[in-house]
């Protein structure tokens, strides 16, 4: 049975933990709004870009002269997994879920006899995958100094990836990130970026009916745009990840705050009971002392 003082200390400590988690939740909520705004702002570009690219890819894709970024190297022996996670923890299952998806994917590829290379973005994912696939790491991008993810960050990652592709280091690249659905739901997602695959937009038929003139030529435009497409997809993924991270942290901290509250209630009841027990036993002692006189 803990003494009254122990209980009191315990209550105080849980109270200060609750203050911290509450503060983190509010910070995450503010950051989430910003992250959602930037994800929102980036959407028109990505959508338009994909619409144009899928049109181009359709008309050029079948030909033999299609760029390697679109058609692939003709093999899928070496796979590059780009695992994007957060730089910080305390955000529920966010990092763990992405890492788990990447590990499952890697295990499947290894079982198929493929060569797996892993590029990590964000420290937490690196730590999580290190134990199982540490010897597959080919690089790491540190974004811990970046306050707000910009297109330039995506560009430098894309440049790194493209340099490796040109050097023939891998055949297929897949990015892993968490898609932001809402504050409580973030879906870990794997998306293949090299060779490029473009989803058919739902109004695909309408887009097809417009015949564009291409200047300089379809091939030249495609060659110019494909590397940008890689950067755009990485950028979109980074932004989704940013929003997901804050959303996950917000709900994790909300839970933590609630749990701390419950714990305080429980401890307070226990504290009051023990205090009452002490008072009662003191009274009994006084009364029995008085009777004895």
């Amino acid at each position, binding site marked *: 049975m803990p003494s009254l003082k122990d209980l009191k200390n315990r209550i105080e400590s849980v109270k200060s933990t609750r203050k911290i988690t509450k503060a983190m939740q509010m910070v995450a909520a503010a950051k989430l709004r910003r992250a959602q705004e930037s994800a929102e702002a*980036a959407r*028109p*570009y990505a959508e*338009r870009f994909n619409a144009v690219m899928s049109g181009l890819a359709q008309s050029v894709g079948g030909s033999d002269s299609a760029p390697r970024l679109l058609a692939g190297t003709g093999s899928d022996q070496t796979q590059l997994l780009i695992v994007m996670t957060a730089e910080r923890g305390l955000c529920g299952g966010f990092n763990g879920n992405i890492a788990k998806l990447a590990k499952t994917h890697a295990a499947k590829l290894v079982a198929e006899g493929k060569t797996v290379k892993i590029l990590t973005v964000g420290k937490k994912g690196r730590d999580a995958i290190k134990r199982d696939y540490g010897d597959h790491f080919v690089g790491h991008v540190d974004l811990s100094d970046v306050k707000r993810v910009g297109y330039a960050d995506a560009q430098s990652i894309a440049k790194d990836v493209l340099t490796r592709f040109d050097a023939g280091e891998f055949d297929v690249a897949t990015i892993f990130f968490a898609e932001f659905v809402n504050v409580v739901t973030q879906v870990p997602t794997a998306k293949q970026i090299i060779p490029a695959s473009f989803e058919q937009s739902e109004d695909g038929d309408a887009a097809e009916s417009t015949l564009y*003139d291409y*200047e*300089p030529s379809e091939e030249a435009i495609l060659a110019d*745009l494909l590397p940008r497409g890689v*950067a755009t997809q990485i*950028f979109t993924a980074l932004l989704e990840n940013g929003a997901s991270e804050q959303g996950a942290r917000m709900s994790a901290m909300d839970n933590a705050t609630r749990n701390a509250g419950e714990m305080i209630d429980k401890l307070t009841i226990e504290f009051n009971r023990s205090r009452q027990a002490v008072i009662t036993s003191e009274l009994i002692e006084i009364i029995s002392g008085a009777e004895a006189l």
Partner: protein
Amino acid sequence: MADTMQFDLVSPERKLASVTATEVQIPGADGDMTAMPDHAPVITTLRPGVLTVTGADGTSRYAVTGGFAEVTPAATSVLAERAMPAEEVTADVITQLIADATEAASNAPDDTRDAANKLVADMEALRAELGV
């Protein structure tokens, strides 16, 4: 015949402009072109240069560094890699862009060096045009 069209300028990070325009001058990779309402559908890549938009409330100019433009009879959309209003461009920004491009050009392999050098020249032309 419509005498105005929708004009959108978007960069990866934000939407810079979405207005009704009568005339848009685009720095295309193969030369400047002006898109007006009912222009035939064209997709062109951009070179670094100045994009001029004429609309109901006058003319505005934007510095763009590459990307592409999609022209349809009813709308012109410019997807620029980096874009900013011309009056916001400072000498520092341009100098940095030129430095980056020059460095990229000096590291470029032989088959793309011409293109990289052209990029540097285009950037310098952009600086001259903006007068910063």
